[in-house]
């Protein structure tokens, strides 16, 4: 059954628009983010927002299979986040030796 009550139709349209704007805001951080860690956090947020979007779309269109899509997407998003964090911790690290170099760069930026 699709959303037939006026209240639910308006609320789900509102939620869809707000979620789209949120995804766009997170996309700005994904493009801007100074470090790789910022981009991974933004990607994690975008996948959570897509899960919420799919659940809202399931109410708006009256299609229950979107809920299964949302569950499967949440599973895959967790695996992707874990893999990206693993990739980040394996990439070149800051070491106790060059920590001062990194902090000097910070001091210059401020």
């Amino acid at each position, binding site marked *: 059954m699709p959303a037939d009550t006026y209240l639910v139709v308006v609320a*789900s349209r509102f*939620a869809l628009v707000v979620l789209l704007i*949120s995804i766009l805001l997170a996309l700005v951080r994904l493009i801007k983010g100074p470090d790789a860690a910022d981009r*991974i956090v933004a990607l994690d947020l975008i996948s959570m927002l897509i899960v919420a979007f799919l659940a809202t779309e399931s109410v708006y269109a009256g299609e229950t299979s979107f809920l299964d899509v949302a569950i499967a997407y*949440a599973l895959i998003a967790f695996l992707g*986040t874990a893999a990206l964090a693993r990739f980040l*911790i394996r990439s070149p690290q800051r070491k106790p030796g060059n920590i001062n170099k990194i902090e000097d760069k910070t001091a210059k930026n401020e």
Partner: protein
Amino acid sequence: MNDILTALFLVLGSLFCFVAALGMLRLPDTVIRMHAATKAGTLGAGLILIAEAFFYAELGITLRALAAISFLLLTAPVAAHLIGRAAYYSGIRLWHKTWIDQLKDRFEAGDLPEETDP
């Protein structure tokens, strides 16, 4: 009654998601931004899934929504922990007003976890 609850939870959940995205854009530091990002996964998606359970009011849909919520509640802290650890060791710049960094002493003493060796 179910329609009112559905609309209420949909609007609340989407507003929480919007606040999380706004925090992702505006907050100054990776670790502080993660604080905002975790709210979208648990509160935002959780409230919208509850709204869906109220809208359909069937046993199967409610159980699936509860399973999705519990899965999100289980994985969000694990994912946040993984990202935060990787971010700290990959050398993110902390906000200049940060005044507690309890890992710094261990880090400078060379007490690193094994995986951080490239």
